[in-house]
């Protein structure tokens, strides 16, 4: 560590340079290495944790020597934040990388264009075409049900709702957020599949999923609509624009980016739902394009059934299905972002 020049001005303080900081942290890591070499300490993960802590400690000691108390606290806070971000990225990255690494094995054009019709668990064939069709149809139907309904409820709550009814609706929506997904599936199973004798279908799955989507859409849309400044509504009213047009043409476009984010969160959340689909779509090995009658597959169901097999060919298909599922959600999110970016001028 180099010593900084002595300063005279009261406004000037010593700063620890980037090189000095790195040198301090490196010294901590090297010290840990020496300790692991000389003492009975061992283990890869142990080394990483100890080296990290020692590096941070040495870095902070360096800062304390060169700078002073306030900047040690500042640098400690910065280290904690960077660590938290790093842990997040590591978790996300390892899920993505591991899924991708395992998934590419069974992933080819054949996988996207064929179903599991007549394919046994040990056969090195079969694909997820029927499951992709099922997921897209079910999620699309669920969005078609829950997004308009959710938007209308959010508009009611923000623009019109006063008093008892509004707070009742808000409470019900809050309770709905906490409904376990299997309960939504069970309800549709009892009410729709058995009660109304409609049988398993993609539509039944979509109904269960829309129960899960609705509260997410309502809450996020409500928050976004609330953020639209009252000044914009007033400007619109002052031009003699009626209330309904103000909502449709001024309020909703201003909130559209946020509303889309909320809708995409809801879509991403339900796209991966498995439990309610077991009781509603049920799962099916062949291609069924019609979501309104008969059991249908979906990507989560496909992953579930393939992963529970004992044979590696089936497990490879499960990983490929999982990778496809992530890709579908990613594509939907990117598409929604592009659509709203075009609407937004600021």
């Amino acid at each position, binding site marked *: 560590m180099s010593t900084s020049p002595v300063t005279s001005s009261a406004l000037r303080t010593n700063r620890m340079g980037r090189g000095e900081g790195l040198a301090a942290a490196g010294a901590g890591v090297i010290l840990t290495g020496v300790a692991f070499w000389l003492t009975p300490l061992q283990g890869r993960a142990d080394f990483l944790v100890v080296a990290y802590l020692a590096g941070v400690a040495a870095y902070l000691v360096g800062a304390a020597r060169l700078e002073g108390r306030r900047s040690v606290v500042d640098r400690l806070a910065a280290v904690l934040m960077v660590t938290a971000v790093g842990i997040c990225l590591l978790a996300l990255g390892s899920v993505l990388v591991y899924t991708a690494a395992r998934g590419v094995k069974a992933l080819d054009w054949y996988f996207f264009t064929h179903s599991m019709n007549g394919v046994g668990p040990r056969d090195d064939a079969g694909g997820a075409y029927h499951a992709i069709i099922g997921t897209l149809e079910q999620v699309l139907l669920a969005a078609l049900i829950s997004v308009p309904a959710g938007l209308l409820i959010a508009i009611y709550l923000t623009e019109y709702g*006063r008093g008892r009814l509004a707070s009742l609706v808000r409470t019900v929506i809050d309770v709905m957020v906490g409904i376990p997904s299997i309960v939504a599936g069970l309800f549709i199973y009892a009410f729709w599949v058995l009660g109304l004798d409609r049988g398993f279908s993609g539509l039944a799955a979509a109904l269960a999923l829309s129960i899960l989507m609705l509260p997410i859409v309502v809450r996020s849309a409500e928050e976004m609509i609330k953020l639209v400044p009252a*000044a914009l509504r007033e400007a619109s*009213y*002052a*031009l*003699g*624009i*009626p209330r309904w047009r103000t909502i449709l043409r001024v309020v909703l476009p201003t909130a559209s980016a946020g509303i889309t984010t909320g809708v995409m969160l809801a879509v991403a959340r339900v796209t991966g739902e498995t439990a309610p689909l077991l009781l509603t779509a049920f799962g099916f090995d062949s291609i069924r394009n019609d979501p309104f009658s008969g059991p249908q597959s979906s990507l989560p169901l496909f992953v579930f059934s393939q992963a529970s097999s004992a044979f590696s060919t089936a497990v490879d298909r499960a990983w490929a299905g999982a990778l496809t599922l992530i890709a579908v959600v990613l594509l939907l999110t990117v598409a929604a972002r592009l659509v709203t970016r075009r609407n937004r*001028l*600021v």
Partner: protein
Amino acid sequence: MKRIEANRVTAFYGGFKAVEDVTLAIEPKHVTALIGPSGCGKSTFLRTLNRMHEVIPGARIEGEVLLDGEDIYAPGIDPVSVRRTIGMVFQRPNPFPTMSIRDNVSAGVRLNGSRRKSDLDAIVEGALQGAGLWKEVRDRLDRPGASLSGGQQQRLCIARAIAVEPQVLLMDEPCSALDPVSTLRIEDLIAELKDQYTIVIVTHNMQQAARVSDSTAFFNLEVSGDPGRLVEMGPTSQIFTRPTDERTEAYITGRFG
């Protein structure tokens, strides 16, 4: 042109009485300034003139506001048509953030259901020229309204208001968020618009009231929490040189407020 008479207007926010018993007349093709200390109810009163007051939940008024003899609070009067006739410019520039400059100006005509949609380009150009903004923005009409400077945004809002061809223009402290140069441009604009519109302007700035207005109404409140009242109204030259009420004199000479 439209003449406005307020007859014993009292405005409430829920249980709170903000301004009480205001009776005054606003002459057509005149600039009328409403001045007074903060909280005296001048902005609230202004908002009762085009039924914007009731937009706030719980707000209501008593009394009547006559537009050429017709009470705009009478049953059967549509507040939306009232606001088409009596436009408003707000304290802070508030262009619609999702719309381009062109769409901001034409928003009123496009969305308020009036039937003349035939020549939007001509309407946009006319309104921007009326607001003295045309030369600055004519080659970037498709840029967002929020890309303009504060003063330009306020003139954009004025253009938006006059594009629907109102008879009366209400301005709620239109310059208080602007720098002196932009303020001067808006004041020049008010002088030009006076030929075509009846203008009511609320201002904190007494020099501004003296510069731009023909008549001035002074509002005051005795104690904070009490409703504001109209103290006196008259030609601007008289209010600023020979006020009849000593409170007016105290306020305009800067002894309080």
